[in-house]
């Protein structure tokens, strides 16, 4: 049976950028985007798109991608379309900036109500910027639908989904009634690459852009104004960075000397 699926995708600073390029502007408590490194779709969200695509491959369906933010780069937020998603809706406005889990989940859930029909909603387990891990469960709670988090496999049949949920020592197989929200973890496996055909098709598609008023929200309810959690301080942990590098004539010799060094330092 074809399913209506919605995937929430966040544009974030590339988490694979070298750690040395990571800088904070402490006067504004904001991260300074590294020059020359374009933003990406948060990797767990890409895997959420992959989870939806696998279901579409099996039984057909429609995938609507929802992204929230400001100044969203079309090349970035269109990536799920080039992977095979059908539609893209952007909640894009200056007023969406600076939100917390609460105001973001509220705006996404309100937009999902406007979309109306859905069987499955997918989110990444957490976004690669704030690592908050709350938005998926928050959307489900606001919509009043069940949620299963940290999934590595999702199948849907007969109005139900069977989800493998990652736990510390393995996984659980959980059956959940639809509609439901699933958050996806990296154990699902790599997201597929965009095909050339997909990229061409995505280039032709125009995203639908919704402003706060289009989903019936006041500026006071969204972004920084709608926050419940207050950020006091954003900082980089101080690192001593005093590594004693063992040097020797050959790598094998260095290995043996390293062992001797550990004994000397009473580490072994």
């Amino acid at each position, binding site marked *: 049976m074809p399913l209506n699926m919605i995937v929430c995708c966040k544009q974030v600073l590339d988490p694979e950028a070298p750690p040395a390029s990571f800088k904070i502007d402490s006067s504004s408590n904001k991260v300074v985007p590294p020059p020359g490194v374009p933003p990406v779709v948060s990797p767990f969200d890409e895997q959420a798109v992959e989870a939806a695509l696998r279901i579409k491959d099996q039984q057909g369906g429609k995938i609507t991608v929802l992204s929230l933010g400001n100044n969203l780069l079309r090349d970035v937020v269109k990536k799920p379309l080039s992977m095979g998603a059908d539609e893209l809706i952007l909640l894009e406005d200056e007023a969406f900036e600076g939100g917390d889990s609460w105001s973001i989940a509220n705006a996404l859930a309100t937009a999902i109500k406007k979309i109306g029909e859905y069987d499955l909603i997918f989110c990444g387990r957490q976004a690669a910027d704030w690592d908050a891990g709350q938005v998926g469960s928050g959307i489900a709670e606001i919509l009043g639908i069940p949620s299963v988090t940290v999934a590595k496999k999702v199948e849907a049949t007969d109005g139900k989904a069977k989800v493998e949920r990652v736990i510390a020592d393995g996984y659980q197989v*959980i059956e959940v009634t639809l509609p439901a929200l699933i958050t996806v973890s990296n154990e699902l496996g790599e997201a597929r690459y965009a095909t050339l055909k997909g990229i061409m098709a995505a280039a032709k598609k125009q995203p639908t852009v919704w402003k706060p008023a289009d989903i019936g929200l006041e500026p006071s309810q969204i972004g920084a104004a709608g926050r419940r*959690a207050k950020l006091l301080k954003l900082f980089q942990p101080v690192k001593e960075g005093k590594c004693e590098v063992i040097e020797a004539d050959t*790598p*094998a010799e260095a290995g043996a000397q390293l062992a001797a060094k550990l004994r000397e330092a009473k580490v072994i």
Partner: protein
Amino acid sequence: MAEYKGIMVYGEIVEGKLSSITTEILGCGRRLADELKEELSCILVGETLGDAPKKAIAFGADKVYTAEDPLLKEYQTDSYVAVMEKAVKDVSPRVLLLGQTSVGRDLAPRLAFRLGGTLSMDCMELSIDPATKQLQQTRSVYGGNARATFTSEIFPQIATVRQKAMTPLACDESRKGEIAPIKVELDPAKIRTKVLETVKEEVVGIKLEDAQSVVAGGRGIGGPEGFQQLEELAKVLKGAVGASRPPCDNKWVPDTMQVGLTGKIVTPELYIAVGLSGASQHIAGCSGAKNIIAINKDPEANIFKEARFGVVGDWKQVLPAFTEKVKELLAG
């Protein structure tokens, strides 16, 4: 409106015993409650709780709320959130602490949104601002590249706590406390999930989380065969083998071996990182190790910023000699 008072800890029971993270957050909760001069309570939820309520008192709780019901045999979002919603509304603590575990990371956000409170996940430091009595929560953000401190004026303030970030009190069986059962009224029709199966993928030998020595491999190991060499070193050190994300994603090793932000948090005495670049997301899982040792051919690799000792070189040539020498030293 009720006054929010006291600290509440959500306790977990693993294999019939109070879990180690529960004792850690009880230790942290005790400190915060003492600063506030308020009560530390613990809530335990399950089918049967055994002697865990008494243990929770021995580890620092003043009062233990117990919720026992056959429907609570396994963790399920709907049933546990319903029980916790009622308990938190009845007790109205200013702060609720949970562990950053499989259960905590699912239960906490759903509960926070239901209660309309605020939540910080995976906190590494917690303190009370004496002026406002608000909880300040410090957690890792941007994949471990930065930390952020949050607070809120909305109660209850909820936080999940990173494993091994807090120190438990010594277990004191003579501590006095009260145990108060709470009434569970669950409607099975409102539980929208069913646990069909639980599959354990336990690795043989010493558990990664408990090991005092961990040998971890990264992308540079190149395949499952290389991990056999790490296994050999781990055996010599009576430790366990871990991995960063790429070896898990490439299925060289099971996912349960992943150390990092979204994997396991380990705090061994010795952490030997082999062929592992040391991405922030990985460091988040091992930065609590006493001694990090790096073997990597790239002198610019981030892991050298974390390590105490290191060798710049191809691990395939460094490791066999290292393992041999360690074996010799430990035998002597």
